[in-house]
């Protein structure tokens, strides 16, 4: 984030919500993620006009419409490409990329790896419910291989994608996992992710009550990870080897320098895109 963007007058979480009312299913974890995101922005005293919330497609990708910041509801799987372009063109903005597990890890899977690798100073929040909710409940990349449903009888039989492992291996500079049932803990993690330099990734376990009612049980499974965050990628990798997917907390605080445009020359001016589109 840009440290110069703090508000002079205190704003509260509701100031970061738009007048549009969410149409998520009652009971959806994304309501609490919206609470946590707005609380994090209020706590950081960000000016809404200095923040852009970007998304792809899916239930969770509706979130930009529910915030009072700038936002862009993009095409499927391309939220990270949009966010990267925006941050590079407008480094003064705090860019928060949002979406779900299907959008981020399947349709946008390749963008995910390369966004981690590039380490542009953006925050990526994935509301992971292990299902494609918007399109009626197909298995997603993070779905358990034995999840039996009408659309995947007997399960897919395919090992799930492990977002934190992939992010770490690809070079993400901050990794955390949160649970929507703990909005305060989630807000704290989002806040830290926004302030941490470089590419920050927060995987939020956000239950889908409609297609995965079994995820109601997550509140009994989730636990705070018993170890402190590390700056050592090898140590973080070892911890992930024994991770069952329900440990929450900050796993990794990397120390890589974020990507900067024109790193090899002295120019600090941003590219004047506007002039290229003048009619």
């Amino acid at each position, binding site marked *: 984030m840009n440290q110069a963007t703090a508000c002079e007058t205190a704003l509260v979480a509701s100031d970061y919500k738009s007048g549009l009312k969410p149409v998520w299913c009652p009971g959806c974890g994304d309501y609490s993620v919206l609470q946590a995101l707005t609380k994090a922005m209020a706590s950081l005293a960000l000016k809404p006009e200095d923040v852009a919330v970007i998304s792809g497609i899916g239930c969770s990708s509706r979130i930009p419409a529910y915030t009072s910041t700038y936002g862009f509801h993009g095409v499927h799987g391309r939220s990270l490409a949009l966010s990267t372009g925006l941050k590079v063109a407008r480094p003064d903005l705090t860019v928060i990329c949002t979406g779900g597990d299907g959008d981020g890890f399947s349709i946008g899977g390749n963008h995910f790896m390369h966004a981690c690798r590039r380490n542009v100073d953006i925050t990526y929040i994935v509301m992971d419910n292990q299902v494609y909710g918007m399109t009626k409940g197909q298995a997603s990349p993070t779905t358990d291989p034995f999840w039996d449903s009408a659309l995947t009888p007997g399960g897919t039989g395919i090992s799930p994608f492990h977002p934190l492992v992939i992010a770490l291996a690809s070079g993400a500079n901050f990794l955390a996992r949160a649970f929507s049932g703990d909005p*305060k803990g989630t807000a704290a993690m989002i806040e830290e992710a926004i302030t941490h330099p470089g590419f920050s990734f927060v995987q939020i376990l956000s239950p889908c009550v409609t297609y995965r009612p079994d995820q109601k049980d997550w*509140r009994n499974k*989730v636990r705070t990870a018993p170890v402190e965050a590390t700056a050592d990628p090898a140590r973080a990798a070892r911890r992930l080897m024994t991770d069952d997917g329900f440990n929450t907390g900050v796993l990794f605080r990397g120390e890589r320098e974020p990507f900067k445009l024109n790193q090899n020359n002295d120019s600090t001016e941003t590219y004047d895109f506007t002039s290229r589109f003048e009619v």
Partner: protein
Amino acid sequence: MTNNQYPKLETITDMLAFVLAVENEASERYAEMAEAMDAHNNTKVAKLFRDMSDIEELHAESVQRQAANLNLGELPVKEYQWTTPEGPETGDFADLHYLMTPREALLLARHNEEKAATYFAELAEQVTNPEVKSMATEMASEEREHVDLVDKWLLEFPEDESEWIEDTDPPVGQA
């Protein structure tokens, strides 16, 4: 998960600011729950949540009157962040379902009021300032009265009402 610790409330101003935030967040949450139910055409439950929101708002206004000569508004936002996962009286979005009945909604409201009564009773034992302790005890008592009020409303909705979890038209993706 966030630890269940109690805030350091050393003065009556701290306490009033805290209570105001508790009531405001509870009122906002009930209003949001009402909107969620409205969006799914469950108007009976939406109305109940809206009524609960109004009650919490009245409570907040009462606290604001008590604090008329105090400057509560300038406390930093972080001061209002809960030491619990959410505000002591705030409903959990995860407990909603689009088919929930008025009885289920009232049971949820009862749970929230009971949670708040317990929270303030325990807070009263933790704080040292006698004024703050007295107010925390008073808050616990008021929340207990709300539990009794919800219990009276519950009499209008008998237990044999069908459960919301029995969806006769389940989502196609479920097995």
